[in-house]
């Protein structure tokens, strides 16, 4: 009897998986990582991580705040070097030569601002943000079967021309968490290539699940691994940390 019941449950599960829609996959994803409502309560995330290149390590700290502010702090020989800092107005980084803050160009800043509503996850309230999702089908990624979901966000501007902002998320069909993201690189030397990030080592932080291991790179080439050692939710960060230095204004 028990066996039959399990069999039925399994059969139902497999039917529902065959008929998955993108919405259902995203809903299950949020359920599985701890619930959409809980996720939406998060006001900020601090990740203490390490970039690991064949054993060479660079410690970094990544801050992401609900209001869109962000910052990555790279630690080189005890020096804190901020990269990709957004204070709600300006996007800036420390120049490695002069160690002084410099603003990103207007287009990069404008494109960046478009993503500030993506905290903590671009799929949160994607409809009300005007995003579109589409289930492209199943694809094998990292040897695992995945649902491939296309996410279309606000168009970005590339060298003066408007272009669609599209990325493809690969949700593991077993756990419904994304294990990879791909998107076309729109500017810079790798323009036209496809970037790929992978995610693994999902673990719990205050009832929510986050990937603790990632790689970032170009599709078809080995990526740069990032190992997250600690994730802190709702960290306290001084507003000044994000602000573009006054003396540079």
């Amino acid at each position: 009897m028990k066996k039959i019941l399990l069999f039925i449950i399994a059969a139902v599960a497999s039917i529902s998986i065959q008929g998955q829609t993108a919405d259902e996959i995203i809903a299950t994803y949020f359920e599985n990582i701890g619930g959409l409502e809980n996720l939406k309560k998060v006001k900020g995330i601090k990740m203490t991580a390490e970039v690991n290149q064949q054993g060479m390590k660079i410690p970094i700290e990544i801050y992401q705040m609900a209001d869109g502010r962000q910052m990555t702090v790279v630690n080189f020989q005890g020096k804190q070097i901020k990269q990709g800092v957004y204070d709600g107005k300006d996007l800036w980084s420390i120049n490695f030569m002069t160690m002084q803050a410099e603003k990103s160009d207007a287009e990069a800043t404008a494109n960046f601002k478009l993503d500030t509503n993506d905290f903590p996850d671009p799929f949160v309230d994607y409809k009300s943000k005007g995003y579109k999702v589409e289930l492209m089908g199943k694809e094998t990624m990292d040897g695992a079967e995945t649902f491939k979901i296309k996410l279309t966000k606000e168009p970005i501007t590339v060298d003066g021309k408007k272009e669609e902002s599209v990325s493809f998320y690969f949700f593991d069909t077993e756990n419904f968490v994304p294990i990879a993201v791909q998107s076309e690189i729109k500017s810079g030397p790798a323009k036209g290539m496809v970037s790929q990030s992978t995610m693994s080592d999902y673990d719990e932080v205050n009832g929510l699940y986050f990937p603790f291991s990632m790689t970032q790179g170009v599709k078809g080439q080995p990526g740069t691994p990032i190992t997250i050692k600690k994730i802190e939710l709702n960290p306290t960060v001084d507003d000044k940390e994000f602000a573009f230095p006054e003396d540079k204004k």
Partner: protein
Amino acid sequence: MKKLVIGAFLAAFMLPISSKAQKKSSISAKQLFGDMRARHIGPALMSGRINDLEVHPTNDRIIYAGTAGGGVWKSNDGGTTFNPIFDDYCQSIGAVELDPNDPDNTIYVGTGETWTRNSVSVGDGLYKSTDGGANWTKLGFDKSERIANIIVNPKNSKEIYVGVLGALWGDSEVRGVYKSVDGGTTWEKILYTDQRTGCADLAMDPKDPNTLYASMWEFRRTGWSFESGGEKSALYKSTDGGKTWNKIHNGFPEGRLGRLAIAVAETNPNILYTVIEAEKQERKGLYRSDDAGATWKQLNNDFGITVRPFYFSRIVIDPKNADVVVKGGLSGSISRDGGKTFKNLGNMHSDIHDIAFDIHNSDRMYAGTDGGVYRSWNGGTTMEIVENLPLSQFYHISVDDAEPYNIYGGLQDNGSWYGPSSSAGGINASDWNSIGGGDGFRVLKHPTKNIIYSEMQGAENVWRYDVDNKRVKTVQPLPQKGTPKLRFNWNAPMAISQHQPDRFYMGSQFLHVSEDMGNTWKIISPDLTTNDPEKQQQENSGGLSMDNSGAENHTTIFTITESPLDEKVIWVGTDDGNVQVTQDGGQTWTNTSMNIPDLPKNTWTYHIEASSFDKGTAYAVFDGHTMNDMKPYAYKTTDYGKTWKNIISDDVVGFVRNIQEDYVNPNLLFLGTEFGLYITLDGGEKWFKFTNNMPSVAVHFIDLQKKTNDLVMGTHGRGVIILDDISPLRELSNEVMAKKVHFFKSKPTIIWEEGGFSGGFGGETEFVGANPSRAAQIKYFLKKRHTFGKMIMQIQDMNGNVISTLSPGKSKGINVVNWGYTMKQPKVAKGKTFSFGGFTAPKVPAGTYKVVLKKGRDTYEHTFEVVYDPKSSLTSADRKFKHDTTMKMYDMTQELAYMVYELDAILEEATKLKKKKLVKGLNALKETLVITTGDNYVGSAEPQLREKMADLYSKIASGYDKPSNAELESLSIIEDRFANAKKEYQKLKKKARFKDKLSLKTFEEFLK
């Protein structure tokens, strides 16, 4: 959280059910090969054939190139650089079309090139992308073989016309013009002539989408002939969206017609141009109509306009000026007087197949040639090549045993070359060396001397090149008394012996052998072909335009293999289907082709691979595509060809060109097909298509480099592609794949000490081939993708000390983790700027190390070895001294770092407490320890102890040599200075009585 558990629970129960349903094919290629990725090394300097160019109708930055054998490439920088967007599909492209109503997203690709030379590949249908090329769906036309045109109604995206040229090598009903009114879901054939006649060109009136022009071409190729033209070739017009068609031949030449091109002027749709292949030479050429096809006038029949119509027939009209017309050709021709007179386009690679004008500025032009894409800024007078299109079309490759090994090969219309498998800064254009002209085919390195053999089409020349002395000698077999005329294949076979280094084989219809590198030749066989005179009429080939290039030479030997185990055993395969073997060095020959089951008679023997395990064992692959048979054929014999066994499974798609046996595991075989690389682990029961960074490109030849275990492929459209170190595949078995984690054995890794300079100029726009990894590679098989929970990897010495931690791969299948055989870089004192030397991590000493993989609760271990370069002149005492010195400086650097850390803390507190004298003393000392001013560039301050120490440490740690006397003297100065600084610091430290309250980290804590 709870939900997650339930979800996982359900999933766990689901799996056994689905796996039960598919018991047999338990694992797919994408679940198997994981991190094993192909590496592309080009070359791109000669690029390859382009079939079709397509510009975006409103964005002049975007241009597409549909290539003959290398897929579809997109440029979004006005043709400066391109990226491939069609790698997963057939790489032979006929046409690329953007929907003019949605050009950013909707792209159609018709596969199968349309310039029907002997070596053309085949297509497999029509594809569509609705997201700018990120994803593709197939719209059918599986048997179309070649699609010449796709046109989307500029007023209605649902209405699409497709011109199908169709099968080249046989009858087919999938030809003519097709129409869809539902965006490609359903199709109606709206113009069809017969099984021999296809649509060679299709055009739409730019003002009236219901007016269409279609040129129909009667054509046929066999392995030994080509025929262009016939009664059925014609130019048609429809004014009702393809419902009815009428011939528009008023003013055309009389008699049979060949290939016709058609173009309609964008500025005036009444102006049409066609190029006509006709019976009479004087009636061939360019014709123009000024009344939308009602009447035609012949304007020009120069060589440039009439040359090889099957290969060049494209006409392109300047979108801004109907009197500027360009015709593809040997050099390409441009007219600025409405087609009356022409001049050649500017110097570029010959054989121009397509031309595109920029949408805004007609001075900007693009040309697609046999040697890539060219750009012009001045209306076609000066042409510059696109440098990042690695589309080289190899017929053959071979490798030598140098370190790094070189790859040799011949290319379609681009001569013969050799280049290295790795090079400082990556493998770029200047790394490749020319080693033959014309069309290049087989290129072989002499096994022991620095001599290279190469050839051109039909063995018209076989070159023996003395590399050291730069001397070239032609050594092809010449006619001998009493023997008939020699028949060499276009791609004539040559072989060298593994037993006699100076022995050199060539095949005509006879097997020729030379024992002195080609100076004297002996025939050691009878005619080994069918010698069918019907297939020896090449001087009549071409149809309306004679085309006797040698490309159709038939009834010839195509492949020669001497057994690596016995020089008397030689296998010969012919293009007309014979598989001949001798066991006595050529005295007696046996034709074994009749012993091969289910192989159609006369199917081209493309390659024979003599086994390196058993001299009676060989593999043979056959290519039937020139008989219109696209099926894969591969066989194995273990008894000198008395019996042959089929080793192809249903997994293989596309006809086969090559097979390679592994040197270690006889069940591991590699198959080169028209649509990519296949690998079997069980001698051919099941084949896996390898797709990791490996396009579906035609693999013409495969070699396996013995020292590196690299699988080297000569592709016909994407250059040389290498699959580095296939040794893990030797171990893959059902038992291995059933384990949760399996580490693969690996050869000891050499600690890489080579350096050098790479220049790196031109890398912005030039293709640069990837180098192999020099890291120690840890390879393992994971049964399941790791997604939840921790998985970490450590490198430990054999005493369990952690040397390094790495990020392990998580894929199901094979994972490859690179370790740079280094320890952590030292902790460096904090200063105002960086100490660049401090970024150096010391290399570990050679020896055995342990990799420890922790996954969930389980721990897996594996040992491996890193060794010093055997070419190094250092003794083990030198090595030890170098390592000890490095570590001494490493420790010193960290000691200084801790001192500065303490000093900073004391200084901070002293400042707070306003201890002026102490602050002054500490500051004075600090200024000698680390840089406290300036920046990391030209504003940098004078280097202090930290910088001097770290720079010397880095110099010694990263050098290949033992520390020199100069370095040691410098070290002693630094040591003295450090000793003095320490003394001074201790004095100051004593004065800071408050220091115990500071709760400073211990040295060990600080280093963490």
